[in-house]
């Protein structure tokens, strides 16, 4: 009996394998883009979600008033035109007369007002509220005009509005309390189905005011392992995929049927020093660390050279040649002298925290920095943490040093006011501030002339690099991979997938 059973089981197994192999990988229907990503969205409320993965999804469904193009210039979205008053204390938008929500109702000034009021309501608990505090009142002279009256000049407000966190949602849905449970936007795609951490089904919005979408829809699969994503691309199971790990991305060009899109992004890899702790409170010690770090070596070793050494300003239009900044060339002699001057000729011991897999290069970065700082006698203990544990410690400022990948923004003020102003929300994470930084940030906020703003922030960058509260390392790329029959995708420095609206499948 035993033998009989086993033989049967084995035959069944063999049969199963044969059948399985035959049924594998059905061809994709021509006009639906099959897409894969590692990390799924964590929620549908555009005002509240801050995770990169959620924003990537919500940008396809919702729209803000304005958005960025590939050069980070502000272009129309729901608003067709906008204007700052001369004193930068009033901002007026004209809405697109054709704009409709996905239920067919027009997008009106009342929806804009309701959306911003929701965002500003503390009960909503939107982290992005911090960017819109200068809004005093919102007026709606007619159905298609919105006027924001501001309590102080706030030029970066417009760039802050070019974010899905400032999406316009239907006033009726706000009243019904369904934002976050139902995805009803005005964007190019409708969300037909979402199984968290498994898949999303999107269909093109035929009534989208922004133009015609060339594909019928997008099927997104969540594939948690990026080597499996590469395998799925290789076997044409997937047309388009997001890739995070530079090591996986560099394998894509080896595949004859695949194309890799590589775009420099605004986010920056950085070694944060905690200037409220000894001995990092000593300027000479911080400068010594900055001089001892070989940024190019960190980039080459931890990220196979995939990226670019950067100063604090990462946005096009503001970036400068980093080699002009303080100690951007490794200088061990100078570092040793600075250490000796500070009374630490024999070095010291400190702990550096880093998050597991966030970014994929975190552990490698920490290790390279550990070996570089050993040269000036600084003994680093690396503490790897699960992301959420790391975030908890980071927010409390509970670290000597931290390896981080911090998000960037199109405007230097929006990007750094949280850290480098006296009232910044994350001042206790940055743990360093001086009058120069604070006053330069305020000047930059009020200045409307682009050339003068550029000068102000160049001075800011030079000063902060010299004060070395943090050691800015490099910016990396955002990667997407696609089959050769996918064309028309345009990338942006924010890593947005909005370019999928222009994609065609041959």
């Amino acid at each position, binding site marked *: 009996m035993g033998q009989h059973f086993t033989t049967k089981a084995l035959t069944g197994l063999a049969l199963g394998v044969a059948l399985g192999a035959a049924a594998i990988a059905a061809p994709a229907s021509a006009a639906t883009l099959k897409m894969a990503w590692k990390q799924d969205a*964590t929620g549908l409320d555009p005002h509240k979600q801050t995770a990169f993965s959620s924003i990537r999804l919500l940008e396809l469904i919702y729209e803000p008033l304005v958005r960025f193009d590939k050069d980070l210039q502000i272009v129309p979205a729901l608003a067709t035109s906008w204007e700052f008053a001369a004193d930068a204390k009033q901002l007026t938008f004209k809405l697109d007369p054709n704009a409709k929500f996905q239920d067919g109702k027009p997008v009106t000034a009342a929806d804009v007002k309701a959306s911003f009021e929701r965002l500003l309501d503390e009960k909503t*608990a939107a982290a992005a509220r911090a960017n819109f505090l200068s809004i005093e009142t919102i007026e709606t002279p007619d159905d298609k005009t919105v006027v924001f009256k501001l309590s102080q000049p706030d030029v970066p407000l417009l760039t802050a509005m070019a974010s899905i966190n400032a999406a316009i949602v239907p006033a009726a849905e706000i009243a019904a309390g369904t934002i976050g449970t139902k995805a009803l936007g005005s964007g190019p795609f409708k969300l037909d189905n979402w199984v968290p951490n498994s898949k999303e089904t999107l269909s093109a919005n035929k009534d989208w005011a922004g133009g015609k979408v060339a594909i019928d829809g997008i099927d997104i699969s969540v594939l948690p*392992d990026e080597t499996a994503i590469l395998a799925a691309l290789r076997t044409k199971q997937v047309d388009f995929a997001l890739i995070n790990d530079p090591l996986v991305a560099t394998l894509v060009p080896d595949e004859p049927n695949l194309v890799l899109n590589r775009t420099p992004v605004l986010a920056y890899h950085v070694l944060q020093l905690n200037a409220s702790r000894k001995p990092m409170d000593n300027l000479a010690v911080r400068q010594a660390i900055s001089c001892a770090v070989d940024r190019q070596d960190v980039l080459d070793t931890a990220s196979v050279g995939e990226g670019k050494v950067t100063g604090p300003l990462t946005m096009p239009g503001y970036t400068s040649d980093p080699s002009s900044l303080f100690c951007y060339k490794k200088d061990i002699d100078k570092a040793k002298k600075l250490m000796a001057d500070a009374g630490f000729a024999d070095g010291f011991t400190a702990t550096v925290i880093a998050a597991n897999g966030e970014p994929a290069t975190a552990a490698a970065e920490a290790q390279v920095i550990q070996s570089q700082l050993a040269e000036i006698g600084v003994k680093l203990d690396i503490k790897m943490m699960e992301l959420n544990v790391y975030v908890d410690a980071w927010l409390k400022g509970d670290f000597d040093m931290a390896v981080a990948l911090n998000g960037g923004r199109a405007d230097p003020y929006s990007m750094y006011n949280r850290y480098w102003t006296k009232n910044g929300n994350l001042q206790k994470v940055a743990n360093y501030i001086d009058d120069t930084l604070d006053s330069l940030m305020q000047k930059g906020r009020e200045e409307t002339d682009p050339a003068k703003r550029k000068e102000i922030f160049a001075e800011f960058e030079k000063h902060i690099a010299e004060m070395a509260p943090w050691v800015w390392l490099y910016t990396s790329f955002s990667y997407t991979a696609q089959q050769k029959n996918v064309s028309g995708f345009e990338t942006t420095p924010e890593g947005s997938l909005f370019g999928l609206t222009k994609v065609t499948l041959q």
Partner: protein
Amino acid sequence: MNYLTRRLLTFPLVMLGVSILVFFAIRMIPGDAITAMLGTEAGLLTPAQRAALSEYFGIDQPILIQYWKWLLGVFQSDLGISVTHGKPVLSIILERFPLTLQLAIMAMVVALAVGLPAGVFAATRKERPSDLGVRIFAMIGQSTPNFVVGLLLIYALSAGFGILPTMGEFTPFSVDPLRNLSQMILPAVTLGFAFAASVTRISRSAMLDVLSDDYVRTARSKGVPKRRVIWRHALPNALIPVVTLSGVEFGYLLGGAVLVEQIYALPGLGRLVLEAILQRDYALVQGCVLFIAFNFLVVNLLVDLLYVALDPRIRLGEGG
């Protein structure tokens, strides 16, 4: 009181212990649902915003009150609502469980179909080259982590043959058996591989014990064919350790196979728990762990009952 009643009476106690352990342990990890959702942006929240979110996530009340409320719910088979899925925890678990159950069964079939014959074969050829070969193979199988096997399989199939099972979703067997099997075979083989090795080793040594017993020699000397002695007389008596091992393993597998589910992008119970922990979805973690613990208890009970069926000399709970 007989064995079964006594075992069943300990169920609620064990479950209560598990509930306390998971409830407090998950809350001891730094970071909460707010930092899980917002990451470093959580630092931008005002105290009022933070309070609003704590209320939304149900973490604003004292921890003992939270526990008491949850426990009352559990008694009414209400495991709470998952904040990340926006659905009742039990319904999410029951959506994911069929996959995990099928994967566990298929992995067991693979392991037993390979491991048992290999073990018996090796035992009957004790210390001969073929025995050595099986033992080396078993050693390799047991010491290779299953994510390595999984990634190698995926690479070999996709790069070598251009094929790969459909990933990222799960088609139930009842909907489309062919598609279902094409998705599940590779993960089952991956999972079954290492376990087949353990089964081989255990069944080999159990068989060796039994084959040296008197009754086997008697049967052989009476002229019963060797084949029949092995499969009909010896094997059933060698099965007890195999059943024990399989029971424990099956219980583990019902808790989800995190790595294999990750690699093959299968939405099973293992990944559900992992994601719930990473997102600090407390209700979901608690519900899953309770569910897994319950399954483990049931499987263990079934294993005990199976002993009796295999060996009528065993009388459970009557003084050994």
